[in-house]
């Protein structure tokens, strides 16, 4: 590992930190709404309310948490 910071491959892409922050800010909310929306649509289609709405919401929240973890782990790896 070089002494000047994280072990980034020479010439590797380096996303702007504020670009990542701007992206994360909206995607957290959108993930939950998207999961909930998909669940509602599936429930309306199959008449199984509220099973898929709940599943969709849980998946949406999980997707939001995964997004944070994914972006943070990639940033730390760089």
């Amino acid at each position, binding site marked *: 590992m070089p002494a000047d910071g994280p*072990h*980034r*491959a020479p*010439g*590797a*892409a*380096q*996303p*702007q930190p504020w*670009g*990542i922050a*701007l*992206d994360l800010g*909206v*995607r957290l909310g*959108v*993930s939950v709404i*998207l*999961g909930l929306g*998909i669940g509602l649509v599936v429930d309306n289609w199959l008449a199984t309310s509220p099973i898929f709405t709940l599943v969709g919401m849980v*998946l*949406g929240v*999980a*997707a939001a948490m*995964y*997004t944070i973890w*994914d*972006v943070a782990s*990639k940033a730390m*790896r*760089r």
Partner: protein
Amino acid sequence: MEEGGSLVHVEIAAEPLFEIGPFTFTNSMVGALLTTAILLTVAFWFSRRSALVPNRRQSLIELPIEWMANIVQGAGGTRWRSFVPFILTIFLTVLVANWIGLLPGVGTIGLAGEHDTIVPFLRPASADLNFTLALALITFVVFVSFGIRANGLRGWLKEFLGEPRYMSPLMAPIHIISELSRLISLSMRLFGNVFAGEVLLATMLAITTAAIFILPLAFFVPGIFLGLEMIFGFVQALVFALLAMTYISMAIAEHAAHDDNHAEAPVADAVTVHPAPTQGAV
């Protein structure tokens, strides 16, 4: 939206103007065509008259392109040249599409609609969700293809389905929602900001038209908001382009990090085989 007593009318969906066979032309399509025409004309003119030593007019056009290219170069690593044309195209298209809404007559000249409203001939393309969603879809395809090119189809699928393999039924829907959230956030952000700007301008024009007897106010207030919309249009174009760049550079950086990890493995082995010099060095 309709302001009381005025002819100012801002509909959330683009309004149909005419039909050619099965195709319905909306006012935002006219805006998109005008955007394309402006960009093509400038590109054609620029490519014909560009000189090695630029004159003032050429410098004015080169300025935003060079500025944006420098940003992409700083963040894009060694592969920046492969996606700088895409980022510049996105930036210039969104910028021109946003600024078309500031031209005189856009949103105010059109056909007579129902309830004393106007169906404008021209609407900024980025104030239509179809346009912004199309741009977001193109961006999505581009950054996914960069990810596949960097990691290979198998590597990309492995990342997408998650590891260990038995977690795939849970991880795949989470990944799908996570990826789709990029599409929605890109398209809704641009649409929301530009549409809100259109509504704001229409409202301010309606208010100041009602207060036309205070003449300085009638010219001054819309002027302030037009200036602000010009800044917002630029910022939104920049945000869209830089987010597209962030997604592409994240897809490429992922590959570089993988390479880096693989490259470090033999070094770690070497340290294990010869512990004494390493300890001495520490």
